[in-house]
């Protein structure tokens, strides 16, 4: 068993911390991480509560494999109600923070209430205390991390914190850990800010116990080798996730100019080849690749901005190396806003990490603002004099900074696409599901992706299902419901282990099962694992239904349902959601209005959560 059996609860309203035993029965039903945190959340809050009110509960959850030697064992989840979606939020992050939390002796950290004044939580080996953070409030993520390591005289402290964006309620503010990894989506950072919790600083030397080292090591070696031998893994290591940008451009599924187009000629200027090719000044964007804790893939990129580039020419504090472009950041600062200046994109990425914002939601919100601008609905008077045309690289970096600091038009961009477009009378231009912005795949070209987007419990998301193989094989909605549903359950399970989704480049469910059985016990069969994933998916759904969401929220914007694809392999097609969704509900054992039937609830032991 790799649990400590301890949950740390920080009651911010009362300014106290306490430790409770881990609910082992729930861990047995939900595995850990995403699933277990969802179970705690449903117990501890009313789903109808306002996401930014003290009634919301913010959970940092490790999984049973977090901190072990399994590859990619650094993952943790932040689970709460998201202000961007008013639905359940579940944001997963790597880096080193998650493992450190486990090493400090805690499986979960649960934050309730709201502090009277700004605080940070310091956790050291089974001890935790809330400390005043008045002098940190209003500062950046990067300053906060450096300050806390300095203050506590320990460079090994791991920090998860928010920037001004989180403090001031930017709807898509994220929690950043280890300078450039983030629990990125759905506005979990704004929830942290609403609680006046600036940071969690952790130092852990307790470690994670290993009951059966020989068996664990044998499975670990075998699964490490599977990753080592996998072509998919090799590609992630060598090129990072951004290898995808060429493929999506060629395929014609790369959302460009707020989804008005589906290919982007400029992608050749921001692809992995461009990242490693010296520019006219002899500057090369990419420095090296970098792993999260325990990860033998190392898909992360470390890059730097050309010191002579206009964006940072007189700003030496951005001349250092930091997290570089990944596919989703390249998409969100590139095609969707029409920009192909690699240094501007990299700088925008720095600003997201420094100020604590989700790049995807920011980029797509800016794209919506650009379309409103080109339609003449927004003018220079709204935008602080900055012309928001598609392709304006300067607008990208200026607005990233204004949003991060919550200045001028940045305050409106901080609303997210949905509220921004509603405010200006064009709600159909918001490229969102349940208020959350799309990742870099157009669901007219990837139909199964469209079904996944529409049904994802946290709003549009590319990481909660995996229908890529089927979407490549055919461009219709036929046969997409089964792989969508099955992969959603499998990924809910993976997100509950403390391991990374990208291991699926080499690992099937059985490979996960061998590792979890070795660490947690042989009762974790393949069937039990997948059932726990399905249970998690349904419990998230039930949370959303209790919160007031309905089947009407399982939809896509009209641009994807009604406007035929203008180009690419799916030219002339729309997303066939109307065909896929009824099939999906039926497969899930839900009514035709998307509510789990009594039979489904009984099968998954979810009766007490019935709507």
């Amino acid at each position, binding site marked *: 068993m790799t649990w400590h059996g301890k949950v740390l609860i920080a009651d911010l309203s009362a300014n106290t911390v306490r430790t409770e035993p881990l609910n082992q029965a729930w861990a047995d039903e939900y595995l850990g991480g995403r699933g277990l945190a969802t179970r705690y959340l449903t117990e501890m809050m009313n789903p109808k509560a306002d996401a930014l009110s003290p009634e919301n509960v913010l959970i940092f959850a490790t999984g049973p494999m977090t901190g*072990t030697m399994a590859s990619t064992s650094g993952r943790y989840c932040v689970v709460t109600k998201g202000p961007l979606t008013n639905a359940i939020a579940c944001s997963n992050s790597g880096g080193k923070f998650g493992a450190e939390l486990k090493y400090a002796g805690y499986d979960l950290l649960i934050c309730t209430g709201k502090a009277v004044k700004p605080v940070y939580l310091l956790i050291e080996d089974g001890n935790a205390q809330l400390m005043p953070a008045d002098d940190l409030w209003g500062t950046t993520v990067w300053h906060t991390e450096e300050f806390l390591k300095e203050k506590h005289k320990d460079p090994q402290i791991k920090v998860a914190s928010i920037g001004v964006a989180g403090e001031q309620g930017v709807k898509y503010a994220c929690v950043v850990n280890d*300078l450039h990894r983030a629990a990125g989506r759905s506005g979990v950072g704004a929830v942290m800010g609403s609680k006046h919790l600036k940071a969690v600083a952790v130092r852990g030397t307790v470690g994670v116990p290993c009951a059966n080292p020989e068996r664990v090591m044998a499975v670990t070696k075998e699964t490490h080798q599977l990753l080592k031998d996998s072509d998919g893994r090799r590609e992630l290591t060598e090129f990072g996730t951004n290898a995808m940008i060429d493929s999506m451009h060629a395929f014609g599924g790369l959302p460009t100019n707020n989804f008005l187009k589906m290919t982007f000629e400029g992608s050749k200027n921001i692809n992995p080849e461009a990242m490693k090719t010296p520019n006219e000044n002899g500057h090369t964007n990419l420095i090296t690749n970098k792993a999260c804790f*325990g990860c033998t893939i190392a898909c992360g990129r470390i890059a730097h901005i050309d010191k002579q580039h206009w964006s940072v020419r007189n700003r030496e504090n951005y001349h250092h190396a930091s997290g570089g472009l990944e596919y989703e950041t390249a998409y969100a600062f590139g095609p969707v806003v029409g920009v192909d200046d690699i240094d501007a994109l990299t700088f925008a990425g720095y600003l997201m990490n420094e100020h604590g914002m989700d790049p995807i939601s920011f980029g797509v919100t800016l794209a919506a603002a650009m379309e409103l601008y080109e339609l003449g609905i927004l003018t220079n008077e709204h935008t602080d004099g900055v012309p928001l045309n598609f392709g304006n690289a300067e607008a990208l970096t200026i607005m990233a900074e204004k949003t991060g600091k919550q200045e001028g038009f940045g305050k409106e961009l901080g609303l997210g696409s949905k509220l921004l477009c509603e405010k200006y009378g064009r709600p159909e231009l918001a490229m969102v599901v349940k208020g959350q912005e799309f990742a870099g795949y157009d669901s007219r070209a990837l139909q199964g992706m469209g079904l996944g987007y529409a049904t994802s419990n946290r709003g549009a998301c590319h990481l909660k299902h995996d229908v890529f193989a089927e979407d490549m094989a055919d461009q219709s909605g036929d046969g997409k419901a089964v792989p969508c549903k099955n992969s959603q359950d499998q990924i809910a399970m993976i997100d509950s282990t403390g391991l990374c989704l990208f291991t699926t480049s080499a690992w099937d469910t059985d490979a996960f099962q061998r590792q979890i059985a070795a660490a947690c016990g042989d009762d974790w069969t393949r069937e039990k694992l997948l059932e726990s994933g399905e249970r998690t998916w349904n419990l998230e759904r039930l949370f959303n239904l209790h919160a007031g969401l309905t089947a009407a929220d399982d939809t896509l914007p009209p641009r994807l349902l009604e406007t035929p694809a203008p180009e690419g392999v799916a030219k002339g097609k729309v997303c066939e959601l109307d065909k896929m969704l009824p099939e999906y509900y039926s497969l899930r054992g839900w009514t035709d209005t998307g509510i789990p039937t009594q039979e489904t609830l009984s099968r998954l032991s979810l009766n007490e959560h019935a709507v």
Partner: protein
Amino acid sequence: MKQLILDADKCTSCLQCELACSLEHEGLFAPAYSRIKVFEFEHGKRNIPYTCTQCDEAWCLHACPTNAIAINLELGTKYVIEDLCVGCKVCTLACPYGTINYNAKSGKVTKCNLCSGDPKCADACPTGAIVYADPQELTV
């Protein structure tokens, strides 16, 4: 003689080495107790694995007042004899590299002993940043 050859250019800072070391020597996953450490610089631009070089002229050994540090002639390692170590920490002051450390849990010092000839860190490293080999036999 074989030794650990550390190549910072290949290190991704995944810390598999620290995990393997702590499991081998402490029986649990606890990088804090690893005898090998990876240091990160400038947001991860440089990641440098670092451990005891098994100095020929081992100051830790000479400084020890209880003769608790001995030489394994076959492997070239300097290792701690736990029964003799009284936890006085003089060796930690003597070591110019900071690679012998006090372990508050055991009340004794710990250092790399090359896992008695089968270093687990090298085995766990996925990128070849840590290799156990005789440098004179390496062609590179």
